[in-house]
């Protein structure tokens, strides 16, 4: 049983969130690789049972450029069996709050077994910790059910 968190972050908010989720996955006994996007290599997705994708949003709700390869990897690799979640940070003042999370969500729903999505406004606050717990519960629960 193996999990991965693959994420991108410019100003550190999404990487903070990724770390919070990482801690929580490990404390649930799930061995989890924490992979910043520049260390990601295509061709490895199917070796995981659970993958959480983390992304910020810029540019009117679009996908960050550096996430395009990952997005395409989900479209081309054998990932039907993989349980996925997508999380991100954004700013609700923009018209497309966490738009990149939504873009991943729709694709992951079609290509994988999507379990959960999570949006956080900027740096995670105290109140977001609970939501991180739920996120991990949902990711790991799915597997027990399957």
């Amino acid at each position, binding site marked *: 049983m193996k999990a991965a968190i693959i994420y991108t972050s410019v100003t*550190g908010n999404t990487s903070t969130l990724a770390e919070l989720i990482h801690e929580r996955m490990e404390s649930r006994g799930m061995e989890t690789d924490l992979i910043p996007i520049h260390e990601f290599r295509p061709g490895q997705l199917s070796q995981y049972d659970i993958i959480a994708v983390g992304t910020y949003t810029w540019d009117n709700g*679009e996908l960050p450029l550096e996430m395009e390869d990952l997005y395409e990897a989900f479209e081309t690799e054998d990932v039907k069996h993989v349980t996925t979640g997508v999380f991100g940070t954004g700013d609700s003042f923009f018209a497309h709050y966490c738009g990149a999370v939504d873009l991943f969500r729709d694709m992951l*729903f079609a290509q994988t077994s999507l379990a*959960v999505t999570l949006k956080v406004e900027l740096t995670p*606050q105290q109140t977001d910790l609970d939501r991180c717990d739920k996120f991990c519960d949902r990711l790991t629960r799915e597997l027990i059910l399957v």
Partner: protein
Amino acid sequence: MSQMDQPLSKIKLLNPTYPNKSTGIINGESSGLLNWNDIAYPQMYDLYQTLLANFWKAQEINMQDDIKQWEYLTETEKDVFLRINTQLASLDSLQTPTMTEVMDYVTDSSFKAIFAVISQQEAVHNESYSYILSSLVPLREQNERFDQAKEDPIVRKRNQLILDRYEAFRQHPSPQRLFELAVNSINLEGIYFYAGFAFFYHLARQQKMVKTSSMISYIQRDEMQHAYFVSQFVRILLTENPELNTEENINYVYQTVDKAVQLEKEWADYILKDIDGIDLEEFHGYVEYLANKRFRQLGLDNYYPARENPMQWIQVFSDEMMNETKSDFFEQKSRTYTKVSSSNGFDEL
């Protein structure tokens, strides 16, 4: 109410994976030549491109609908409309020359370039307020309104907080004063615009003066990105110059932004008091929510109690309303995933 007694945290360091080749955003050694492919903070290139992609100009927006509707606004609405318009215009007028001033002092050419783009955008904002005014009232009244903005004691008091620090930097530019200028620039772009924005979006949600609000929406989008950039600038400034990353300066951020918050509340109470449908208590909460976000952008903690956005309608219009197009990535492959939601059997947190 505020967390005055809590220990203040230092601004968190930026991502340590950045290359160290920067000779510094200030007092650095730099040839002055800019090759965007070889810069100290590569994410600045993305930011630069995002800012450029915002490009818009006032004349693209046809004011005919608003001109017709103007007649139907109440006298109070017209008065508040004109006062807010000139007040915002005077804030932007301040920002254009200040950004160019800062450019002279910043040694990293990529940052200089971004300050130049910001300065250009402020000039466009400034023009758009003139464009709105010229569509609605004769020159004589425009000038009267600008005089009114200059003389209004509350406007003056607000602006003084910012002006003092801008002026201090002009007189004796130093790293400390640059830091203080940047914090006040966040106040200007990130706090002071919002009572005005609230008024225009409030009209828009009643389908009034929607062309004006479209411009306001473009302006807000630009300003939000400026506030992001300046926050990054502050964080990098403090990371590169640890002698600035002191308890005192962090305290300065909390105190100065808090001052701006109080002044924005005071301004809202005064300018929006006769506008039905804007709850001023709620707006006070909104300003604190806004300021908390500014603190978090700076890598600091919330200063006010954490809360949800109490006025979600103060928001940039969507691309559909703004006629934006999707990126190449989604156009080329004509990806057509259906929009899904929690009703499809996953959880949305």
